């Protein structure tokens, strides 16, 4: 770790160096670690809902099957593919920043944003479908079939888990937008790209949450297709 004095001539260091750090290396390490710690908090946040899901699925499995049968398998699968592709473009964007390809970086970030918006759009279509089918919990909920009370609980978890996920996706799209904007203005290059990297970490995390949500919500009943 450097022990250089505080005052450094300004043309001696990267303009992106924040002055409480000794050097870019320390700044990068701190920034990366900070993002990982933040993602751990997000795991704990979603974890509470996953716990509720596991407990109630164990107690009311038939209702979970019934609820899952009302998910739109195709929209969910398309969304999963969309997100995985967006993670690919995001990872490639990080690499572009690393090698200093500004135009490629911005293009890939924009594609990532677009894919994110496709995801959100499909979710909006799905939500609308569930809404008109009276599958939103509360006074308007209606379900033909046994044990509607616990099917309603399934839907409560569906709306809460995918809702918080969608909120995180939206924040992610905005974040990627900011990075694309700064990237267009040449802020990132081989000697400073960790905001891109960190955004990539966040994006991958949100993707992984969906990869868990998808089978847990959409794929239960397909085991029962005779």
């Amino acid at each position, binding site marked *: *770790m450097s*022990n*250089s*004095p*505080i005052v450094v001539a300004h043309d001696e260091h990267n303009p992106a160096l*924040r*002055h*409480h*750090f*000794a050097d870019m290396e*320390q700044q990068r*390490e*701190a920034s990366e*670690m*900070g993002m990982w*710690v*933040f993602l*751990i*908090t*997000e795991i*704990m*946040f*979603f*974890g*509470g*809902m996953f*716990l*509720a899901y596991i*407990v*109630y699925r164990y107690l*009311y499995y038939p209702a979970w099957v019934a609820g899952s049968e009302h998910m739109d398998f195709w929209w969910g699968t398309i969304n999963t593919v969309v997100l995985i592709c967006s993670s690919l473009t995001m990872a490639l964007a990080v690499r572009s920043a690393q090698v200093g390809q500004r135009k490629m970086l911005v293009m890939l970030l924009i594609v990532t944003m677009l894919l994110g918006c496709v995801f959100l759009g499909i979710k909006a279509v799905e939500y609308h479908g569930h809404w008109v089918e009276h599958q*939103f*919990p*509360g*006074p308007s909920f209606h379900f033909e079939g046994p044990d509607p*009370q*616990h099917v*309603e*609980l399934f839907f*409560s*978890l569906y*709306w*809460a888990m995918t809702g*918080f996920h969608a909120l995180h996706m939206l924040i992610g799209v905005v974040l990627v937008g900011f990075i694309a904007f700064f990237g267009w203005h040449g802020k990132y290059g081989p000697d400073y790209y960790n905001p891109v990297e960190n955004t990539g970490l966040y994006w991958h995390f949100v993707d992984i949450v969906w990869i868990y949500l998808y089978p847990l919500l959409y794929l239960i009943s397909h085991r029962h297709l005779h």
Partner: protein
Amino acid sequence: MATVAVQTAERENYLNTEYGIRSWLLTTDHKRIALLYLLAITFFFFIGGFFALIIRLELLTPAGDLVQADTYNKMFTMHGQVMVFFFLIPAVPAVLGNFLIPIMIGAKDLAFPRINLFSWYLLMVGGVLMMYTILTGGVDTGWTFYTPLSTAFLNTHVVTAALAIFIAGFSSILTGLNFIVTVHRMRAPGMTWSRLPLFVWANYATSIIQVLGTPVLAISLMLVALDRVFHFGFFDPQRGGDPLLFQHLFWFYSHPAVYIMILPGMGVVSEIVTCFARKRIFGYKFMALALIAIAVLGFLVWAHHMFVAGISLYAGLAFSLLSYFVAVPSAIKVFNWTATMYKGSISYATPMLYAFGFIGLFTMGGLTGLFLAALGIDVHVTDTYFIIAHFHYIMVGGMVMAYLGGMHFWWPKISGRMYPEGWGKLAAMIIFVGFNLTFFPQFVLGYLGMPRRYWQYKPEFQVLNVLSTAGSTILAVGYLLPMAYFLWSMRYGKPAPDNPWNAAGLEWTTPSPPPTFNFEETPKVTWEAYNYDQIKEAPVE
């Protein structure tokens, strides 16, 4: 009264480097942010204290004759919420931790100064929302928000209170995140993990809990809000949900939360005891490991709050056993502090008086935890005043005393002034007496069977309640004194030297108050923590 000698104002320090409200509200200096936090939590302490006053006044008589039942229910609810989330959780980390951690490790600031400022704003937004809740009618769920009472049976501002706490929770998470990265990445050359002051270790352990636990509180409150606003059924048996699931999620955070509240205080006590006994800490490695052990084990015991809630007998057994494990590291710390005093050279300065108080009262509170971990006893005393006494002994007798001790210890560094020592000692003693009179009778009340959260009670409980209320008035006076003389000292206090206590630790190598960037040159550390074997001179009494 003679004005203070001029030389203190001249040297540039973090207080006088810039003036104006913008320089404070937009600061990224961890020391200024610490003061912003100090203002905030002091304000909330008095709000929470006001509610406590109403509670104790009501409880002077068995009948409910001061306020209405609904009002009383709001009083204890908001007392708990404000004290826990807006005072105890931020107090030592966000005030003392923020101020000291970078300096103690030889850094210029925390890893993420702007996030630090953002954390303060989050606390303020949460606080404003909490004040809004209070001023527009309040909330009466109990600080524990148990369902389905909170989701389906109350008409008060449950959602705004939950949101306020949710936002304050993120303040806590970001502070923890900041501290973790700072301690990992920003230590000066030579400042190895085994040379860190225990205050840093304590805040590090606290930060781990904050980062892992608080998000679970966040989601619990969100789900309560969803249940309430949209009639989702997570916790409502009428809609297929389970009220016990809420309790598990809530206590999964709220038990570790009590360690968030006490660990930083333990760190403060280690700093004070070593300094005022002029000794290296006894068993440094064990002390550091004990902090980590408490943090880890603290996550495994949450359902000891639920022994009579309807969990299975076997779950009860498991959580009781684990609760006894978590008691061990705390015991180790008490023994080590005592051993540190052995053959020391002990001064009775105000910070040391608070440390004595902490060790005694924390020991009492902690020992009563042994009673509660015993399943057979807990069945009788849970949800009674025994519990209230237990946690107030630790939170107030322990934590608040540690906080005040730390404030006195580091006040010279923070403000550049000495507080008046005579008044300091007096206040400490008043607080000690007032505290014990307030809360010791509550142990008896609890075993007798007086339940908690009772607006009216059976007449045979009155004498003990009167004693408790009498104590609380003494305690209130005790708390007002430091407020008054700290303020006084900012103008009229003796200017403080760099190291008035001749204490070990990097913070004492900087001027009082420190310059904005803490160090002229990044320190190179070659000595162990608490090197009192090398610092020979003790300050004149």
